[in-house]
């Protein structure tokens, strides 16, 4: 049976961004939990078992988005959780993470570049988990 309220965990080191996205997603019917760094993020993900993870790729913390993704993908109970990777770099540096060779190491289901188009993000979240 499908859950009534779907849960999303957002991991980002920008606390303003966390607050904005939490406001946006809560107002669109999701239960939202947030973590300000990778270490807290992976702990929260293991505790909350969310339906989707919104993950900042390049966090300037000791535990990056790459590591969070690797840990989720290597956990049998979590590995199928959809991950949306948020990057600030695709258009600046021409990096395309979806072509990353080592899919086992770093494999979000989809990427969004900052600044995130909220409507497009919401549409993608619905596609992935509804």
């Amino acid at each position: 049976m499908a859950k009534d309220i779907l849960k999303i965990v957002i991991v980002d080191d920008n606390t303003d961004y966390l607050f904005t996205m939490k406001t946006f997603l809560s107002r669109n019917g999701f239960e939202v939990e947030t973590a300000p760094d990778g270490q807290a993020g992976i702990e929260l993900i293991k505790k909350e078992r969310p339906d989707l993870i919104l993950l900042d790729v390049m966090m300037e913390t000791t535990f990056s988005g790459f590591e969070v993704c690797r840990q989720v993908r290597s956990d049998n109970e979590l590995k199928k959780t959809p991950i949306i990777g948020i990057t600030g770099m695709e258009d600046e540096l021409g990096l395309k993470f979806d072509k990353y060779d080592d899919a086992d190491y770093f494999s979000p289901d989809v990427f969004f570049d900052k600044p995130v188009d909220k409507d497009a993000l919401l549409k993608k979240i619905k596609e992935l988990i509804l």
Partner: protein
Amino acid sequence: MSDSNNTELMDLTFKSIIDALPCYIMIQDPEFNILFANHKFKSDFGDDIINVSCYSVLKGSRSQCTECPVRETFKDKKVHISEEIIRLSDGTIIEMIAYSAPLFDVVGNVKACIKLLVNVGTIKDTHRELVTLGQSIALLSHDIKNILEGLQGGAYVVEEGIKDKDMELSGKGWDIVKKNITEITGITQNILYSAKERKPKIKNVSPGDVARQTGQLFAEKSSYMGIQLLLQLNPKVPHVKLDPTGISRMLGNLIWNSLQACQKNTERNSHMVYVRVDFYDNRHFMFEVEDNASGMDKDTMKNLFKEFFSTKGNSGTGLGLMVVERIVRSHHGKIDVLTKPGKGSLFRIIFKLDHKKLDLV
């Protein structure tokens, strides 16, 4: 014209040409002693350099340089090129390209080497400026994009609050907007400061007043961030010659860095930033900005004052400390950084109480 006259003229012309060349030319023996030097060389290093070693004259060293094109030329009889940093007798440091070529005797042995040094400082400076410009555009656009995201996000939260008549939510959104306005203001001011050399506008001011006024600019922000900002200003520090706008910008950058470092530090619940003005010794006074955030590691310390070096990820361009360094330099001051990983950092700026080199406007 006779042959002997011709030779004399040619000798004179060659010597004039060598002396007129805007580079250093010298001839060295296998022990690296200078046998001949052109006029330009002698005018910058003195006349008493004949039979003195090259490394002693150019580097002030007692031992041979680890990399020496002349040594290589003596070894393999070929032309060698290297980059050298030379200190002139007046202390000026210049970057040079050195070429060395062999001078053969009649049987083909290298009897001496001719070394030519060309100042490439201007080219190097231009190169560095271009690299910096490239980095700055990339990093500033990244940073401004993040600020725009913050402004859009804050505005969205304000609107949602207005829609629901939830003033608390609107207030939180407005705080995000204000924080990002502060960020873009700081970046703009730092760009203006770093874009060109700005001559300080020196006035007779109280350093305590400058620190107090700058601290007041951050009172609301620090309170919102949950960080105590404490001013400890010794009222006995007299009026001194300073550019109050520059010093305020310097302190503002240091305070903002400390506040952000505290905000990022999750290992401690209570954070404090101290701003101090006090005597350093009987001829100097100092400004200090100290925090109890996470401190800095060796790599961060090493890169601290480099343009566009930042550890702040989405919230820093790295311009701030570069501007601090520039302002301190323009006041002939000195920066000391004391830090301990896990404990915090202290930036101490030391200035003379009576600086004769600074002219009042």
